[in-house]
């Protein structure tokens, strides 16, 4: 398998005056088709790392390579294009556009990409059927439950066939039943389409279902565990903290 993401000595420092180091020389390689969980306490830099990978934020130092291309200093326009083409986002809060129906929300990344409206609609309907919302196509977010909205968000994240799907606490607002459903959905899509999933989560049950778990503390990866069969094996020394 080839490396889809390579991160070299990535740094992010916030604030002027009192500096806050959010990411401290992080090195990370993510393989294509991998399902990766990033865990760690609040403020450990999980979301910052995710925003860097998602090209939403720019690093203070180090390099990010996406599919063999150094995108560290890409222009805002190029980053927007890459986000649209290569990345799908699922956030803790669904962030659906409230005026638009489920199907219109799923169409959005496709319309941004310049796809024909009819074609986009067709693809959006297929995706919504796949996430089990075939009968909710024309409902707006306020007419859907939390779990349903999050499933629409999943469909939207997958609409443009992204190579990487990023989830920032994608099930953080859901009960355990909806949460399991979302995870199973993601896993199924991963198996079918070999998409790479990078999930930030507090939920250790979910993390333990992934292929690899990274533990971040104070902007450093302190522990990396890789699945081998049903067991997680720690590769590096996992510092007790």
């Amino acid at each position, binding site marked *: 398998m080839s490396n889809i993401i390579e991160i070299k000595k990535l740094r992010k420092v916030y604030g002027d005056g009192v500096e806050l180091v959010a990411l401290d020389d992080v090195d990370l390689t993510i393989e294509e088709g991998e399902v990766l969980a990033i865990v760690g306490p609040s403020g450990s830099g999980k979301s910052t790392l995710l925003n860097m990978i998602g090209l*939403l934020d720019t690093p203070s130092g180090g390099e990010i390579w996406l599919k063999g291309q150094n995108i560290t200093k890409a222009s805002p326009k190029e980053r927007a*294009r890459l986000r*649209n083409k290569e990345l799908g986002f699922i956030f803790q809060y669904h962030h*659906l556009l409230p*005026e*638009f129906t489920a199907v219109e929300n799923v169409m959005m*990344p496709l319309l*941004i990409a*310049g796809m024909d*409206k009819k074609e986009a609609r067709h693809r959006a309907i297929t995706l919504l059927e796949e996430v089990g919302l075939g009968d909710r196509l024309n409902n707006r977010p306020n007419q859907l439950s939390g779990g349903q909205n999050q499933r629409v968000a999943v469909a939207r994240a997958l609409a443009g066939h992204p190579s990487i799907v990023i989830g920032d606490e994608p099930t953080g607002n859901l009960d355990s039943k909806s949460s399991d459903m979302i995870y199973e959905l993601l896993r199924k899509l991963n198996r079918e389409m070999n998409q790479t999933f990078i999930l930030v989560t507090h939920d250790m049950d979910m993390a333990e279902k992934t292929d690899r778990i990274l533990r971040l503390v104070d902007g450093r990866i302190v522990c990396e565990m890789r699945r081998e069969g049903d067991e997680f094996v720690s590769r590096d020394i996992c510092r007790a903290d």
Partner: protein
Amino acid sequence: MRLTYDLGCLIHHEVIPLFELFVAKKHLVSRRRQTLLVVGAVALAVAITILFRSLINGFETTLNEIIFQFVPHVTVLPEGSESYIHLYKTLIETIWEIPGVMAVSPALSTTASFAHDDHVENVVLRGVVPYELNMISKIGIDYMVAGDLDSIQNGRRVALDQGLADELEVNLGDTVQVSFPDARTMSLVVSGIFDTGGFSTNYAYVSMETARDFLGEGNVVTDVQIKLEDIYQADEVASELEARGYNAESWQSQSGIVETIESRRFTNTLIMLLVIVIASFGIANIMNLLVLEKTREIGMMMAMGAAPKSVRKIFLIESGILGLAGGLGGCLIGYLIASYVNSLAIAISSGPSFSVILTFIVDPWDILAFPLITLLLSVVAGVYPAHQASKLDPVIALRG
């Protein structure tokens, strides 16, 4: 096939961006009340401006019609310090040689005191030939309320204005005493009363002979009035007469009313435009609120790959639509009100034989210009909020 695809791309992404239009339209429709409110404000400002301008147009047209019924197009006056034009027959022949001359009416005009019982009034007394006067101002044809104008040819008779008759309390057949220093006092019988609704106040007409007797003058006149086929030829005719050594004035140089109307129209249009500008900048306010309200969603659109340029376009399109809708709506409202009022044919009367119909004349250029003006203004108003939206950092925007 390839060509049509490319053409489709051009339409969707360059001229009318599909995604941006899709979002903009949805924002406007889902915020129906705010949209209607701001469109309504712009429409109202535009409608009022259009109505005002068409009222001025109507007023001007009516006024021109009136002016050209009573006011001569060119007037020849005595030279310099002279009181009279002596060789006026030659002058009249010269005038008739000019192409486009429709009527020529010489007059011997003076001020006189009219007295009846205890009433005394200062009057402009003009000695005229009724037939010639009628060619200039149709007083004897359209504006007589009693008697007739031709009767002044029969000796010591006078036709006078209704207002003047009221002041003097005279009726047809009454006798007025006419006097003036250095003039021969005489009695004149009222043989005609006319009413032009204020355009001939204090005017009285007598025959040329009566006027000459009164002044004790010979074959002279004080002015010669000319009517032309084309009123805008007046300046040309006046200068031609000037070149031949006469003192001639065109209606343009005499009547300040045209300038007054024009400057009125200009200053008022300026004020109205300011109102439109203010209404259009209501759009800026709405847009600012919208950007604040939609911050998270803008962040999400950016995460989905919407470029800053796209985000900017969304808000520019929205304000543009608001402005254009306001402009078009205003034109429609203005036009409908104007048509309705015109259909009522409201008469504004001033005197029994004289009334003006309240008329709005909507200038077609206004219908074209105002939607363009409001479109332009609203896009300008949208520039700042749209720029703010496009500058949002998606990470911060998503946090809300």
